[in-house]
């Protein structure tokens, strides 16, 4: 597939392509800046490529080059399975033409590149900063921006523009003509702009939405993120490969185990490293545990937002049982740091299987209770069915993945489409919804809990004996007697401890099915002990970008229900 798509692009755009590469099986094409839009439009429309999903856009800074910035587009096709990476270079102060007319997911992705690198996108409908404060000076991910230079800015950004407010007022006045007149005989509009968040319980402490209301109905809305921008990507450039693992815990802190697996999966791809079978099976177990715990929190809090508090207790009790297992396994409840490059932090403890099986029975009980309470509940159905509905085409256009995309009826799951860790050998189903509304999203997640339990059951049964860490001396410390008794062992130990893991120069995109969708790491290495660039592809970033479109025309209370169902985790959204 890779070779064929590269060949096709070469035939069509021979002169525009600067470089073609398929390192580690990732098809990568560098094109001239002037041809970016044309080539991307071709990739989207050409029937054999059909890249309908724009996963993310990443910037890379090479200050020593004349055209110092690289803009990297990660493309995927759900129909043909094409994976493509398209790159272009741009000088400081220059602009690239926007692709937000091709994919709506490009809108926020381009804003992020602008914010962090200062690359402008010509024709972008909304060229504002996104993660940093709007008064922030400089561009944080440029190599010459010091990591510790914080900036305190005070004036909050006005989200709704004057045109938006006035335009909506004019429409409102038009639709009410002849109905309402104030004392001067003018037709009155009574739209009200309200601010939700960031310090608002339903906004999860880190999201802000400004909505224009007509009574209870949202006429227009705008959102702002970045309140939890903890600079993961800058921190990653400042740390060794192994040191980054704790930071990955805090991306999607509700399913830290899954993030750990995703990160080491991407790094191992760059190292071309095989992991022992036992470690692979344990990784399957822990990532499914992460998925279960994530879904418990998401569904539990979503139901609280709708007003069904009891379910929250049921799910959090189940979660506590899971936490106990996780705490015994890794020493922490939430921030696990369980994986290591080449293996795991430590083996399963004695009695893990029975503990986990017990916890899973508790989860099953909780799920049964909650399903019984809500699934055919009239109030819940009225609150959730048809609320925040999204069609499959739109969802793909917005860059949705994971349970949210599956609730619209698309059966795309990385575990099936691009199996990793041996997922092709497990027997499980992909639940899909029909309407893509709040109700389907909740039920999809609940069914995924069942499927994850099936996978864990199979994995526990086949768990082989053996080592949990790859013996490869590039990543693993040698056993102690080798360190003390052989010169090679001592040198290996010294090099690893002092210099850390050395990842060969190159770039790769490693991805797995996170709890909330495709979780990917686009990594550029220059062969030193730190990553040169680490771009996370967080599943909820594109999902939240569509939120304001999703809630237009809905009631405020429906917007809250919708937001809960999308499972926006700020740590991963803002990184």
């Amino acid at each position: 597939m890779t070779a064929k798509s590269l060949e096709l692009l070469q035939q069509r755009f021979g002169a525009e392509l600067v470089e073609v590469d398929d390192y580690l099986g990732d098809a990568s094409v560098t094109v001239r800046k002037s041809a970016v839009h044309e080539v991307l439009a071709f990739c989207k429309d050409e029937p054999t490529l059909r890249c309908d999903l724009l996963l993310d856009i990443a910037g890379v800074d090479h200050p020593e080059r004349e055209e110092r910035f690289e803009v990297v587009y990660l493309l995927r096709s759900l129909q043909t399975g094409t994976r493509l990476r398209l790159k272009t270079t741009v000088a400081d102060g220059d602009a690239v033409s926007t692709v937000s007319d091709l994919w709506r997911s490009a809108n926020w992705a381009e804003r992020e590149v602008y914010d962090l690198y200062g690359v402008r996108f010509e024709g972008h409908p909304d060229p504002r900063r996104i993660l940093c404060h709007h008064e922030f000076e400089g561009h944080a991910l440029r190599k010459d921006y010091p990591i510790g230079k914080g900036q305190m800015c005070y004036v909050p950004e006005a989200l709704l523009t004057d045109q938006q407010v006035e335009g909506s007022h004019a429409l409102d006045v038009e639709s009410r003509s002849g109905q309402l007149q104030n004392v001067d005989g003018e037709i009155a509009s009574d739209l009200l702009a309200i601010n939700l968040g960031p310090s608002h319980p339903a906004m999860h402490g880190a999201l802000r939405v400004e909505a224009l209301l007509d009574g209870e109905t949202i006429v227009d809305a705008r959102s702002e993120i970045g309140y939890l921008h903890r600079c993961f990507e800058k921190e990653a450039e400042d740390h060794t490969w192994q040191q980054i693992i704790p930071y990955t815990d805090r991306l999607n802190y509700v399913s830290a185990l899954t993030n750990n697996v995703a990160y080491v999966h991407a790094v191992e791809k760059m190292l071309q490293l095989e992991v022992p079978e036992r470690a692979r099976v344990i990784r399957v177990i822990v990532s499914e545990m992460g998925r279960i715990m994530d879904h418990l929190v998401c569904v539990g809090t979503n139901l609280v937002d709708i007003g069904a508090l009891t379910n929250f207790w049921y799910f959090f009790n189940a979660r506590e049982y899971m936490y106990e297992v996780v705490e015994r396994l890794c020493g922490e409840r939430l921030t696990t740091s369980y994986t290591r490059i080449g293996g795991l932090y430590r083996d399963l403890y004695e009695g893990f299987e029975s503990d986990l099986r017990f916890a899973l029975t508790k989860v099953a009980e909780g799920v049964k209770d909650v399903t019984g309470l809500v699934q055919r509940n009239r109030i819940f159905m009225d609150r959730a069915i048809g609320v925040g509905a999204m069609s499959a085409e739109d969802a793909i256009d917005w860059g949705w993945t994971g349970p949210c995309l599956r609730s619209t009826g698309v059966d795309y799951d990385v575990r099936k489409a691009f199996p990793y860790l041996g997922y092709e050998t497990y027997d499980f189903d992909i639940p899909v919804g029909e309407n893509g509304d709040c109700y389907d999203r909740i039920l999809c997640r609940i069914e995924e809990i069942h499927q994850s339990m099936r996978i864990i059951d199979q994995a526990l049964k086949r768990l082989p004996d053996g080592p949990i860490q790859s013996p490869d001396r590039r990543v693993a410390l040698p056993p102690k007697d080798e360190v003390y008794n052989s010169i090679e062992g001592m040198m290996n130990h010294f090099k690893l401890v002092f210099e850390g893991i050395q990842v060969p120069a190159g770039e790769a995109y490693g991805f797995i099915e996170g709890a909330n969708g495709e979780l990917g790491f686009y990594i550029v290495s220059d062969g030193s002990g730190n990553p040169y660039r680490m771009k996370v592809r967080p599943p909820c970033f594109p999902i939240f970008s569509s939120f304001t479109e999703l809630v237009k025309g809905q009631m405020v209370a429906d917007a809250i229900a919708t937001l809960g169902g999308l499972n926006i985790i700020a740590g991963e959204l803002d990184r």
Partner: protein
Amino acid sequence: MGVALEHPSNYITTKLRQAVNWGRKYSLWPMPYGTACCAIEFMGTVGAFTDISRFGAEAVRFSPRQSDLLLVAGTISYKQAPILKRIYAQMAEPKWVVAMGVCASSGGFYDNYGTVQGIDTLIPTDLYVAGCPPTPENLLSALVQLQERVDREGLEVLKERHRDSQIA
């Protein structure tokens, strides 16, 4: 509390300050300023297993006007900082601030351009809870410590403490 029962069934005598503090310490109404991972552990603390209501602090309010304990659970970024200051200023006296977790206490391992290095650079902070995130038990222990302090402190102390804070 030093209650003297002079007439067994009708009244007790005590100092007003002690009676008020006694009431306050067992009815701390927290406002969880939850921004990140710690907020999930706060939910766990409210949950049935550790049940914060045993300590009288289960009346979680999301309005600063209705609460007297500001529980900063999570990383405070520079973008978030002015909002935290404003929320704090909106709370009525007496009020207490707990920095839950290392991010709120000192920035934790986020020493970078986006993260405030401890909320005590923004608002007066009473108690720091260690952990990343702290376990529910740890948070409850902090709550008990805070109760002891509330019991000891008079209103004068509180006034003194907040007099110098330059909060807009």
